[in-house]
């Protein structure tokens, strides 16, 4: 019954897919919370327990999202790679700029490592999100 109701809310031509977009938003939220927590402590020492916990949760969700995505049948992987590739390039530049600011502001050691890993998760998660958001509405390609 619930599945029938969910199907009824879809636009004609759309189909139900795993919650990749929702999980990506959750990953993004975890990274943003970690960023806010860190920024609220700077330039003093930042207690690392909460940021490490947030980072681990984000990595696990990102990995789960990758598995869910890879299991989708009848998907337009060509469009996914096209969008995700260009978005990855754009976000690599943005993440690189943020990394530059961290180093410029004398962030060092474990703190720099945690922030770099958070940036890496961010820079991988957004291309996955945008690639999926576009490819889901395309006709499946021949390879799928």
């Amino acid at each position, binding site marked *: 019954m619930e599945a029938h109701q969910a199907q009824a809310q879809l*636009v*004609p*031509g*759309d189909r139900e897919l795993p919650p990749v*977009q929702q999980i*990506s*938003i959750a990953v*993004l*939220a975890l990274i*943003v*919370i970690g*960023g*806010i927590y860190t*920024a*609220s*402590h*700077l*330039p*003093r020492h930042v207690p690392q327990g909460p940021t490490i916990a947030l980072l681990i949760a984000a990595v696990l969700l990102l990995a789960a999202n990758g598995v869910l995505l890879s299991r989708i049948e009848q998907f337009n992987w*060509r*469009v996914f*790679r*096209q*969008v995700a*590739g*260009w978005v990855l390039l*754009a976000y690599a530049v*943005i993440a690189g*700029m943020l990394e*530059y*600011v961290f180093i*410029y*502001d004398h962030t060092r050691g474990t703190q720099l490592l945690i922030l770099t890993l958070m940036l890496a998760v961010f820079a991988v998660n*957004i291309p996955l*999100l*945008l690639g999926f*958001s*576009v490819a889901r*509405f*395309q006709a499946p390609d021949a390879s799928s």
Partner: protein
Amino acid sequence: MASIAEPVQVQAPPAARAQPLRDFQIVPLAGLPIVAVVIVGMIVAIATNSLWALDFYHIVGGGLWTGIDLFLGLVLGPIMGSMSIPARVEFSTRLMPKMLLIMPTLVTMTLGAGFQLARSLGNLSANSPQHSWLVASYIVVGVMATIAIGLLEPANIAVLFELRKPQPNGARIERLMKVFIYTAGITGLMQVATLVIMTHIAAG
């Protein structure tokens, strides 16, 4: 990797088949040099720690970001809602590629320069009387960023790809445009909170 900036032929949806075919680029290439100049200028501002340049980038970027968000959500949104679907498609085809360049650039300008400005002025320090206001601004910006990247931007790009199809799905475009306009409106309203916080910080 194929280019997403290549010109494509777009045919209007069934309701608008009388409309002529149009060429459009998902990423307007002509705008990229402007974006590059803005970003390089911001890097120079941060590297030189020029208070004026950081102030300029933060205030100009923030003002435009807030203004465009409010205008999109509260003025253009209701107008678009009352337009016919072919007119909406026509309008979206021209508006959305520009938004794809303008908004991320303004957000990068505002946040990058803002953080460095706060650092230069000593507002980042926990001892600063402005610290709690700054943390409040981080939270507002964090929520806005999550909404913008998680919902607004995917809807924007999905609409552009839908418009490239020989026969775009009008209902899908309408639903995605609603997501775009509503999320722009929500972030616009949240920008009012940012305005309150920032003017409080500026007033000391």
